[in-house]
C-alpha cells in the first residue's frame, strides 16, 4: 500500500506570494495533520482534520489555512509568505484503532522563501 504522499517535494517562493501544499493520506485513514519543521527544531503542530472537520489548530497566524476533501486528501495554504515560513511541511495521517496511535508521515514539502 502507498504511504502518505505529499506534493510538491521542493518549492521556492518569494516574500508575499501564496503557496498550496497537498497531501494524500494512506488509504482508509480519515485523519490528516499538518506540521511545520524549521531547520534544527522538532515539528510543530499546525492543523488536524478528521472527517473534513477541523479538530485542532496550533499557534499559527491566520495566513495559514487548510481543508480536507471528501476523499480525505488535504491542502495547506499559506498566504503572504514571510522568510520565516521557510521550513519542511509534514503531513501525517492516522486511523482509529480505539485509541490514540501513531501518525504516519509523508516525506514532506520543503519550502524556501526568498
Amino acid at each position: 500500500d502507498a504511504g502518505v504522499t505529499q506534493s510538491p517535494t521542493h518549492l521556492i517562493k518569494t516574500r508575499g506570494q501564496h503557496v498550496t501544499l497537498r497531501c494524500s493520506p494512506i488509504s482508509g485513514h480519515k485523519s490528516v495533520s499538518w506540521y511545520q519543521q524549521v531547520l534544527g527544531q522538532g515539528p510543530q503542530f499546525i492543523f488536524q482534520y478528521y472527517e473534513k472537520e477541523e479538530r485542532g489548530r496550533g499557534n499559527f497566524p491566520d495566513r495559514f489555512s487548510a481543508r480536507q476533501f471528501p476523499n480525505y486528501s488535504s491542502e495547506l495554504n499559506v498566504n503572504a509568505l514571510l522568510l520565516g515560513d521557510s521550513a519542511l511541511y509534514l503531513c501525517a495521517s492516522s486511523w482509529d484503532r480505539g485509541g490514540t496511535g501513531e501518525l504516519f508521515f509523508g516525506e514532506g514539502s520543503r519550502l524556501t522563501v526568498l
Partner: protein
Amino acid sequence: SQQGEEDPQALSIQEGENATMNCSYKTSINNLQWYRQNSGRGLVHLILIRSNEREKHSGRLRVTLDTSKKSSSLLITASRAADTASYFCATVLGRFGNEKLTFGTGTRLTIIP
C-alpha cells in the same frame, strides 16, 4: 512551542554500542511516542508507550516512562550505522481525532562504523 527537551542534543557512539536518549516534558499525557527522522525527511514511528505503562520493548528498542518525573528514555541496543538519524519524542494528550503531537527538540545520533 516545544513540549520539552531531548538530552543530549547530539550523541556519537561506536557501532555496536548502546545509545540512550532522554526526553522531558511539561504537561499530563495520554501517551508518549518516539520517532526517527533521516536527513530532514519524513518521520518514522518507532514505539508508543501509554501513560499507565512503565517500560516497553520493540526489537532493539527499549523505552521507559516515568510520569512522576515527566520523563522518558529511549535505549537502542547494539547500534548499527543505519541507526544514524535524529530521534524525537512526542507527547499526546488527546484521543483519536484530536491527537495533536507535541514534539521535543530532538537528539542527533551518529553511529561511527
